């Protein structure tokens, strides 16, 4: 036993050679980079929804580009129906609103943006599919009065159009 040890120190014998280990010290770094990538690329939902929204389906949808230039208007039944009833309500930012609040909302959305891009702001209407058009028409009229003409009816893409 002892003799062999002495031998090993002098000559490298292939049969006692240990298998080299892969250095995993940098693995956490790689994973962290992935993690940061996802954290940056994924946008957190900005608004806490207070209305129930199931978007209608459509086939001819386009992607909404430049998310920084989009302001959302939510219309649907309140989630807490016991407290707020079942009539469709408008949600702007984080609270319920009425049609009268829309001009102010539009003005604030414009103020928050650079002057050069103000005319490009899109107002995305996220409306529940069972809402009646009355309230939607009112909102659209208010938007027209506020001269916010570019709107987007938010829809889900219909995957299997029945044709």
């Amino acid at each position, binding site marked *: 036993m002892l003799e062999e040890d002495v031998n090993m120190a002098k000559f490298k014998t292939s049969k006692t050679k240990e298998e080299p280990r892969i250095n995993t010290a940098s693995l956490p770094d790689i994973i*962290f980079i992935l993690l940061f990538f996802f954290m940056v690329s*994924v946008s957190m939902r900005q608004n806490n929804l207070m209305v129930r929204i199931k978007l209608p389906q459509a086939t001819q949808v386009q992607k*909404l580009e430049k998310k920084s230039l989009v302001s959302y208007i939510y219309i649907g039944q309140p989630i807490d129906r016991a407290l707020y009833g079942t009539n469709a309500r408008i949600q702007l930012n984080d609270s319920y609103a009425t049609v009268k609040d829309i001009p102010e909302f539009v003005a604030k959305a414009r103020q928050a943006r650079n002057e050069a891009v103000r005319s490009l702001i899109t107002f995305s209407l996220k409306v529940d599919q069972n809402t009646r*058009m*009355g309230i939607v028409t009112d909102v*659209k009229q208010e938007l027209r009065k506020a001269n916010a003409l570019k709107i987007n009816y*938010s*829809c889900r893409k219909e995957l299997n159009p029945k044709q």
Partner: protein
Amino acid sequence: MARRGAPEINAGSMADIAFLLLIFFLVTTTMNVDTGITRILPPLPKNKNEKVDVKERNVLKVLINSHDLMLVNGKPATVKELPDRIIDFMSIHPNNPAYPQVREKFIPALGRKVLMTKGLISLKNDRGTSYKMYIKVQDAIAKAFNEMKDQAAMKYYGLKYDQLLDPEKKKVINELVPIRVSEAEPENVGGGR
């Protein structure tokens, strides 16, 4: 006392921790792409009494009542047949009084005059119409216009509209096929509250 080197921290599990975080983020966040139908609202008329005179034959009237039933030019119709109706209505028939009037328009990019229809889709809905139905109709109208754009792109460039890479060409097609949809000033039609 023998001097001991600082014990090495085992970093092997660090990757697992980071993986857990990564999976947590992957699961909780949704890469939702917003999709929808983009439309430009007409500006408010400056003069309320001002009425735009459009000839009857130039308008395809689409009415939706509070029971989500549709009338196209006074006759019941389904959403399914609407795109074909619109494409047919917007096609160019210079000498047929059953179709809208035509006009000539000079398109600089093509270097010549092109016949364009004066047709217009008038969409009118009730306050009681469901949003679902309204989107269905908007979708059908969008489908018709997209198909007309494809046709025009095929005719002039031999490609579909989506395949055109040059934004200038897209502009020309958009000029050739303007989305002529008018949404009437809201009023109560068909018994909604």
